[in-house]
């Protein structure tokens, strides 16, 4: 089940997604009318199934066809995986920022760090260092960098 929070401020719309994107999701109904450029905050998406992907592409492709400008922020791992697996998943939208997964062996804790895609590109996709509360920290990027940043390569 997906929950949507929407805020229209002046010339733009901010939409926040929270939950699972699956077959019961109807983006047209959940998002409704929008004004100006749209920012989709994706941090709260926990998983997306195959029919959810189809629904996603149908909705964002229609936004693109209507000439709307939109971008995605704080894309979590399930969305990054789709960006990497399906070449047209972003449907022309800008991916402004993504969440990078880390794991600290000392705390045995999963954590994420937000990163702008422009910064990653500027730094040749170098993985930023993060620190957890333990000192010395042992947090390491927890994915295959080659795969995780595949969609950012030209």
């Amino acid at each position: 089940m997906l929950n949507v929070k929407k805020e229209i401020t002046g010339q733009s719309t901010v939409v926040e997604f929270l939950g699972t994107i699956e077959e019961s999701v109807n983006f047209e109904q959940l998002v409704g009318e929008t004004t100006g450029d749209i920012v989709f905050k994706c941090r709260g998406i926990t998983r997306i199934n195959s029919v959810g992907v189809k629904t996603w592409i149908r909705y964002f492709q229609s936004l693109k066809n209507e000439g709307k400008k939109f971008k995605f922020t704080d894309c979590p791992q399930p969305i990054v995986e789709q960006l990497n697996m399906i070449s047209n998943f972003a449907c022309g939208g800008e991916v402004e920022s993504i969440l990078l997964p880390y794991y600290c062996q000392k705390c045995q804790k999963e954590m994420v760090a937000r990163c702008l895609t422009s910064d990653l590109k500027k730094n040749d996709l170098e993985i930023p260092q993060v620190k957890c509360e333990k000192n010395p920290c042992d947090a390491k990027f927890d994915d295959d960098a080659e795969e995780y940043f595949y969609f950012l390569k030209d």
Partner: protein
Amino acid sequence: MGIHQKIAPKIALLSHQSWDATFAAEMGALGQSELWIPESAGQVFEQWDQVKALFVDVVSPDRVREFEIERIQHQAKLQREFHSDKIHFISDKDLAQNRDLIFFESFSNFFVRPAERLGFEAELYHQMIDARSRGALANPLSFLAPNAHEQVIELAHTADKLDCCEALRSYLFTANVPAREVNVIANCADELIMNAMFDAPSDFYGKPLYDRMERSRERELPLNERVLFKMGFDGYTFCMSVTDQFGSAQRESILNHLSRDFRSQEYHVDQGKAGAGLGLSFIHYSGGSLIFETIAGVSTTVTLISRVFDTYRDFKSQFRFLSVVKHGSY
């Protein structure tokens, strides 16, 4: 020594790769079978009854084509049926880069050669070989430690799918499986159950009943459309299976969906179908080992075996195999 001396089944190897030789020898040791390195595929087919498993290095599509021709020639000559269940292809490339393979009838079992020698996974693979050589169905519990508890759920309504996935997530979270791995496993369950509920049901002539029905439309499942979900976890390995009562899954269709690649080509929404056509490739690239077993007109069982790790990186790069087996004719 009696007249009916039992001939120990052999593990045959058609490969010059040292990794393959080590692996085949290990499989032989686990099953107390002799390792046999024949000079040609023809030799293997001449003694097919004595072969428990044949490992073949996928050197190139041409080499596999030659292998396939040899198999067909022997099949015609000896008028004997070759069960591809015993043939195991090994490659350095994944299935999407080996698409030619899926058109060969001998294609049944496949895995990408890992960089290192297998540990625990070797035993797991041997379990699979054993089931294959006996023509038996995979039993989820056989892939788990003896203390593992199996849960069985019969799904009687399409809405049960999401409840089942949520229950699975809660169970794995409680078992301290990392969140990302939990979500991937739940997604695999979601896709497999959805396929069993919407893609498997077909009429007497094999025509799909619900392939155009919106997946969001809720309905109660009649007795013959109910889906059986089994799962077990022993603290290290998670295993689940999803069974439909139709046995309509076509080998070519399964392999085609598994090996689809949307990185190099765009995904286009097919308005004529309610499904996305993406589920199996998602599972194949993120889940774990997959076994498809179809008894034509009776049932299809898909089994997923995933080892859980502290890090997602290890989870994702774990050894995984694919096995597609058909019993009976479609």
